[in-house]
């Protein structure tokens, strides 16, 4: 009986959430862009083979303009730019999302622990956060990806461990606000331990904020990944949008006027980052209606 009430309440909440979100036109647009990108990225191996991506089996000419056979032209080795852009979405999305998850997990953990325990643990954790906050994260990421072994995992770690500081700050503030509420005090009085309070009460309360923050962070992570790849620090064995841009510059495609080689990865980065940003903004407004009123 109680379960069905809870279920009913959740469904109403979800419906309200969906309705409020649907009112955000830009949020919907972002969702469509991301959904389409995700479908394309996930289904790519069904119609793009390893041969399409290997330079030694490429059949096209060098930097051929778009044609029926190659809708987005070819790169400097005769591979289809369309195939590369589609396959590139996989690494870009994977790295962007995985790095963000890593960053958000670290950030939430540090923020919640710092706020909950206070005192010297808080002092230590927040000074650590400050340290990462003031350090230019891209420089740190470059250093990390230089010393660690090359590969997508390194890039994920490099971006993840350098971008969690602002999340930690945010979560700490929210945790402090929540822990000041009477129900937390009541839980503690009734004998709830640290794990109970943090897990059952604080985490659900900060989660919406973390979710909105995550969506916004993915955009930055994708740009970071493209930047690192463009600087030659990416995974040389796989295709991402950043490595495509790097290859285009290295091979002189810009000077040669091969716009079909530059625009697809460039626009893809902008579109996906914009998609994540729009979704994140919409989420923020849904979760915090005061934002919508202020506009």
């Amino acid at each position: 009986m109680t379960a069905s009430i809870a279920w009913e309440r959740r469904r109403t909440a979800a419906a309200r959430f969906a309705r409020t979100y649907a009112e955000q036109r830009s949020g919907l647009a972002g969702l469509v862009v991301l959904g389409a990108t995700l479908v394309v990225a996930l289904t790519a191996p069904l119609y793009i083979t390893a041969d399409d991506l290997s330079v030694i089996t490429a059949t096209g000419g060098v930097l051929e303009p778009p044609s029926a056979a190659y809708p987005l032209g070819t790169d400097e080795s005769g591979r289809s730019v369309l195939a590369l852009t589609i396959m590139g979405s996989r690494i870009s999305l994977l790295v962007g999302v995985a790095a963000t998850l890593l960053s958000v997990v670290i950030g939430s953990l540090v923020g919640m622990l710092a706020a909950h325990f206070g005192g010297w643990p808080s002092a230590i954790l927040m000074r650590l956060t400050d340290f990462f906050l003031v350090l230019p994260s891209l420089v740190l990421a470059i250093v990390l990806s230089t010393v660690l072994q090359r590969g997508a995992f390194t890039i994920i770690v490099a971006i993840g461990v350098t971008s969690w500081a602002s999340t930690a700050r945010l979560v700490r503030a929210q945790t402090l606000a929540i822990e000041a509420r009477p129900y937390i005090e009541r839980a503690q009085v009734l004998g709830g331990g640290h794990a109970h309070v943090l897990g059952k009460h604080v985490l659900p309360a900060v989660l919406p904020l973390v979710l909105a923050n995550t969506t916004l962070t993915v955009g930055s992570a994708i740009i970071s990944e493209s930047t690192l790849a463009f600087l030659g620090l990416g995974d040389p064995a796989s295709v991402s949008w950043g490595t495509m841009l790097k290859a285009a510059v290295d091979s002189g495609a810009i000077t040669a006027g091969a716009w079909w080689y530059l625009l697809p990865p460039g626009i893809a980065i902008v579109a996906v980052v914009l998609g994540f940003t729009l979704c994140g903004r919409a989420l923020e407004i849904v979760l915090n209606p005061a934002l919508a009123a202020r506009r």
Partner: protein
Amino acid sequence: MSRGLRRLACLFAAMVMALAGGAGTALAQPPGGAVLRVAVTQEIDSLNPFVAVFLTSTQVNRLMYEYLTTAGPDNSAQPALAESWQAAPDKLTWTFRIREANWSDGKPITAKDVAFTYNQIMTNDAAKEANGGAVENYASVTATDDRTLVIVTKQPMASILNSEIPIVPEHIWASQVDRIGTLTNTETFPVVGSGPYVLTGYQEGQSVTLQANDSYWRGRPKADGVQLVKYENTDAAVQGLRKGDIDLVRDTTPAQFDSLAGDPNITRNEGRNRRFTELLMNWSNPSGVDGKPFGDGNPALKDVRVRRALHHAIDVNAVVERIKQGHSEPGYSIIPPVYPDWTFTPAPGQRRDFDPEKAKALLDEAGYRAGPDGKRVGPDGKPLALRLVSSTDVATNRQLADFMVGWFNQIGVTLTPTFKSSNQADDDMSAGNFDLAFSGWSVNPDPDPMLHQQTCSYNATAQSDSGYCNPEYDRLYAAQQAELDKPKRQEIVKQMNSLLYDDVHAVVLTHDRLLEAYRSDRFTGFVTQPAEGGVITGQTGYWGYYNATPVATQANTGGGNPAGIIAAVIGGVIVLGLVAFFVVRGRRSSSDERE
């Protein structure tokens, strides 16, 4: 604004700045007059002629210091500081007459300066780094008077007139011999020299500035100076040429070269170059000299069958056609075809062509059998996985690496490329810390120095190549060095080349033509080497720079972009925006181009 949006906004702002300001290269203020501005992408290792080995650095040294004799535009030895010479009948004693000429500070150049320079390299270990090999066979060098220099060699020496040793003024360097190996030669300006230009400024990572030498013995150059400007990549350099920021750009990619056709202010030069591009195979672990461990090369490469298999897996014609787009030719020898007397082409039965099946058979024979996933596993049970070191300054290296990965994958060998700055890649190669590496050298008209580099004595030095050490080769090297009869010497050199080829000391991939372009509305008169169809930059002389003649009227320096490029610029601008926004690119370096 959220962070993502803010970053996008910054990005677009950066694009606008990039559009307005060009490709983000710090341009040093050029000195007055008609200065030839040359774009370079390679780093400078040092401007000290006793130390410098990078191509760009030795090019600057060539402009600063004369040699005893120098290679003319036709590649033959010509008088330089020595106006005449003769060899004694014993073929060991050479007497050079030094011409009447002055250093750039007005002091006379004498035979004592030459003797000082040579003796420093022969006796002072710190001065040996760049040119130690050239004097190994010298017994003594003495100045009997101000105009006469006597060189006595241990063995007869065929290449003595091609010894490219920059001669420094004794009155400047005598007081600094104790730090001769650590000087950068940029401590005080102007740097006293004897070449067509005098070094007057150096900003690390930005520019090298030289002014015309008024007291140069051939006569003052027509250009008032030369400035080398460092660019991060050739694409930025080509844009700089279009805009008129620079006057000469070298080593463009085929796509860039083709795109410069039809610009009325720009003349292109496709020159037969004295270089080769090679894939080094590190088989100096353990070292072939003393059997001790050296570096961390994969021991599998010690097996000549493995090296041959790797060679058979490479389709050199595809490198020529697809990567170099025809501006190249397949290579077989470390002596490029631009020197027809010394180059080498293997006999049809000897030649290793692209043949993956043969490569697989050789690997099977060597004990590297294909596992269930097609990957080769060695007798020790370890998969055959190799690392490839590549420097970032040669624009086509990345593409070349992609092809190598594909070809080696076909025969079940895993290849992992890493890209490094030229200084870092060079450090790895010198220390033997690599399996495979892209490299290349500029070769002098006399093959002796290049052949010398493959001898055992060069192992573990800055100029070591692949750790090759074969006593038979060393014996032939000594024989050709002492052979003054040219046809006989050619025969020995051919044997040496053949030995190198059979041993697969490295895979010589291609001899690429150098793709250069210059602002013909600002400068003309470049003399190429060889004179017909040769190169302007990267010569064994200073002919290209020395003969550069300013065009009297500078019509326009603007130069617009063709309309068709605008779309590309938008895309390019995204790239530039990313770069400009996250400018954190420290000293990204440049080159596997060593001389």
